[in-house]
C-alpha cells in the first residue's frame, strides 16, 4: 500500500508543534522504560509474554493501521469514491476471523514450543527448516518496501512540521523509531503502541466529528455530492464491482497472513483472555477508521460545491481539511496520530525483520544463537534494517512506490495458505507449504512489477495481489492433496495444539 509520497502542506503553527513535541516526549519516555525492562531475547521479540487483552488489541491495531489510514485513505476515498471503503470494510469481520482461525493456536504453540516468530511457527507446523527459511525471506522482502514507504511518509510529516527537508526528516524519523526499537524491541514497541493507538483513535474520532460538522452532517454532504457526481456515492465508487470485490477478498482473507499483527498473539500472557481480543480490536479499529470516511467525503463535498478548488493531489485531503476546517490543536493531535500510526507500524516491521534475520534464518541453517547473542544481534539487526530502509526511502519515488505496492499482497499470498489453513487442516503438507510460499513470492513480485511498469493489466481493475493470493491458495490445496501421505507432516505436540 503506497503511503504519502509527495510533500505535505506546511503546518508550522505553535499549537501543532507543541502537540508534536509533547507526543515525541511521551513516546521517548515509554520507549526508554521499555528499553530498561528488556533483558532477554524473549523480552525483545515477544514482550516477555506478558500482554493482557487491552494491550494486545491496541498494539495490534496500531501495528495494523499505518499512516495510510490518515493520509492515503482519505485521499483514496476522495479520488475513487465509496469504493475505497472496500479496503476497510473487512475490518468488521477480520478480527474475529483471525481470532477463530489463528489466535489460540499460535499462542498455544508459543507455549508448547517456545515459538516467537511466524516463520518459526510455520517451520514447527511442517517440521521444515526450508519452509521456515522461505517464509522468513518472504517477510524480509515485504518489509523492506513497507518500511521504506512508512519512513518516507514519516520524513514528510516531520518536514511539514519542522521544515527539515525530506531527506533529513527521513533520518530524524528513522532515528526516533530506532532509538526505542533497537533498545527495547517489541517490549518498548507494544507499550508505545498502546499510547500511539490511543492517540490514533482519539485523533480519528475528533477529526471525524469536525468533518461532519464542517460538512453540515452526513446527509447534507451526501446531497451535495449526489447533485453533482451520484456515482461517487455508489457502493463501488468509480471502481468496477470486480475491482472492489477483489479488494474485499485481498483485505478480508489477507489479514490471516499479516505477521506484524499475528506475531502479537505469541505475546499474550493468558490464552483464556483472548476472549475479549476481537471486541477490543474491532472497536479500536472502527474508531480509528472513521477519519478517512469523514474527511474523504467532506473534502469531496467542499470541492464539488466549489467551496474548495480541486486538490492538486488526492493525498492532500487530510492536510487541506486540517488547515481549512480544524483548530490548530486538533491539527496537532491529528499529526501526532499520523506519526503514531507510522511509528507503531515501523516498530513492528523492524522487530519481525530482525527476528527473521537473527532467529529464523540461522535456525533454518542449523546455526542457533544463544539467548544473549540473540538479543545483541537482534538489536544490531534492527539498526541495520532501519538504516537500509531509510536509504531506500531516500531513493527515487518510483522505486519506493514499487516497493510499497508489494507489502500486504506479499504477506497474504506467502503466509495465508501455509499458516492460516495449515494450522486448521492436518492434510496440509510440507510440499504444499513450500510450493505455496514460493508461488506467492514469485507471482506477487513478478505480477506487481509488471503491472506497475504497465506491461499488463488485469481486466476490470482486478487486483494482482488477489490473483497471487488465489494462486497460492490453489497451489497449497492441490500440492497438499498430491503429496498427502498416511503420516502427515505434523509432530505430536503440534497436532495437540491444532486439535485443541
Amino acid at each position, binding site marked *: 500500500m503506497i503511503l504519502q509520497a509527495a510533500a505535505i502542506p506546511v503546518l508550522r503553527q505553535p499549537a501543532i508543534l507543541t502537540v508534536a513535541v509533547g507526543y515525541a516526549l511521551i513516546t521517548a519516555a515509554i520507549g526508554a522504560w521499555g528499553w530498561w525492562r528488556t533483558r532477554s531475547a524473549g523480552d525483545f521479540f515477544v514482550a516477555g509474554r506478558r500482554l493482557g487483552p487491552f494491550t494486545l488489541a491496541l498494539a495490534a491495531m496500531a501495528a495494523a493501521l499505518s499512516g495510510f489510514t490518515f493520509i492515503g485513505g482519505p485521499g483514496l476515498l476522495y479520488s475513487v469514491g465509496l469504493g475505497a471503503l472496500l479496503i476497510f470494510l473487512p475490518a468488521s469481520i477480520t478480527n474475529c476471523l483471525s481470532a477463530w*482461525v489463528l489466535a*489460540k493456536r499460535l499462542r498455544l504453540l508459543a507455549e508448547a514450543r517456545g515459538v516467537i516468530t511466524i516463520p518459526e511457527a510455520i517451520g514447527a507446523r511442517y517440521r521444515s527448516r526450508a519452509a521456515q527459511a522461505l517464509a522468513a525471506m518472504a517477510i524480509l522482502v515485504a518489509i523492506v518496501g513497507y518500511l521504506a514507504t512508512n519512513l518516507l511518509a514519516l520524513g514528510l510529516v516531520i518536514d511539514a512540521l519542522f521544515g527539515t527537508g525530506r531527506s533529513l526528516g527521513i533520518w530524524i524519523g528513522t532515528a526516533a523509531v530506532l532509538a526505542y526499537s533497537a533498545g527495547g524491541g517489541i517490549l518498548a514497541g507494544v507499550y508505545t503502541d498502546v499510547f500511539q493507538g490511543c492517540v490514533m483513535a482519539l485523533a480519528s474520532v475528533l477529526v471525524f466529528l469536525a468533518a461532519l460538522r464542517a460538512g453540515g452532517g452526513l446527509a447534507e454532504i451526501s446531497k451535495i455530492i449526489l447533485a453533482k457526481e451520484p456515482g461517487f456515492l455508489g457502493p463501488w465508487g468509480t471502481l468496477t464491482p470486480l475491482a472492489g470485490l477483489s479488494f474485499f477478498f485481498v483485505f478480508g482473507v489477507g489479514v490471516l497472513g499479516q505477521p506484524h499483527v499475528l506475531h502479537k498473539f505469541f505475546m499474550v500472557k493468558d490464552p*483464556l483472555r483472548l476472549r475479549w481480543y476481537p471486541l477490543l480490536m474491532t472497536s479500536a479499529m472502527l474508531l480509528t477508521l472513521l477519519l478517512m470516511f469523514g474527511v474523504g467525503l467532506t473534502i469531496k463535498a467542499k470541492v464539488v460545491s466549489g467551496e474548495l478548488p480541486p486538490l492538486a493531489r488526492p493525498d492532500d485531503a487530510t492536510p487541506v481539511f486540517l488547515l481549512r476546517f480544524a483548530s490548530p490543536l486538533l491539527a496537532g493531535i491529528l499529526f501526532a496520530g499520523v506519526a503514531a500510526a507510522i511509528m507503531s507500524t515501523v516498530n513492528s516491521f523492524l522487530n519481525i525483520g530482525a527476528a527473521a534475520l537473527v532467529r529464523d534464518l540461522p535456525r533454518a541453517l542449523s546455526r542457533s544463537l544463544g539467548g544473549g547473542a540473540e538479543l545483541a544481534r537482534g538489536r544490531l539487526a534492527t539498526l541495520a534494517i532501519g538504516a537500509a530502509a531509510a536509504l531506500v526511502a531516500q531513493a527515487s519515488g518510483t522505486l519506493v512506490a514499487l516497493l510499497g505496492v508489494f507489502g500486504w499482497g506479499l504477506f497474504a499470498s506467502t503466509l495465508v495458505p501455509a499458516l492460516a489453513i495449515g494450522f486448521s487442516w492436518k492434510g496440509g503438507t510440507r510440499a504444499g507449504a513450500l510450493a505455496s510460499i514460493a508461488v506467492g513470492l514469485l507471482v506477487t513480485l513478478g505480477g506487481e512489477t509488471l503491472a506497475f511498469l504497465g506491461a499488463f493489466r488485469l481486466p*476490470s481493475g482486478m487486483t494482482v495481489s488477489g490473483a497471487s493470493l488465489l494462486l497460492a491458495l490453489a497451489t497449497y490445496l492441490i500440492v497438499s492433496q498430491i503429496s498427502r501421505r498416511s503420516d502427515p507432516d505434523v509432530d505430536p505436540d503440534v497436532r495437540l495444539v491444532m486439535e485443541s
Partner: protein
Amino acid sequence: MKGLALGVLGIALSYGVAFLPGRAVLLAPWLMVAGIVVVLLSLIVLGVRRPGRRLPKAVLAAMGLLLLVVAGGFTAALLLPGEGTSSPLWLGLPRRAALLVYGIGVVPALVLPICYAWSFESAVLNRADLEKLRSELAALDSRRDERAT
C-alpha cells in the same frame, strides 16, 4: 476443506470469466461474491471445528449473520438501481452505499465479537481444555526426555 476449495474455485472462475468477451463477464462479480462468502465461512468452520464436537450455536449464528450481510449487501449493491441526483438517503447515505457500509461494515463489528466472546469456552478454549492440553504436552515432554536419556 471442500468448502474452502469450492470458494477458491469460485473466485478463480471469477478472475477467469473476467477475461471473456461479451456478456459472460457479467457473471464474474456473482462468482466472486459467492467465492468470498464460501471462503470466509469455510475458514471459520476450519478454525472452530474440533474433533468430536459440534459447532456452538453462537458460532452458527455468527456464520448465518455473515452470510446474510455479506451476500445480501453485495447482492443489493449489484442488483439495485444506481444512484440519481435525488436518491433517498438511509442514515445519511444512498441506499446501496448504506447497505454496504452499515450492513457489511458495522453490523458484523457489533455482533461477531459478541458471538466470539459468548461462545469462547465452547468454541475456542476453556480452563479444563487448557489444563488437559498442558498435561498432555508435559507427558509428551517427559516421554521425549526418557527417550533421550
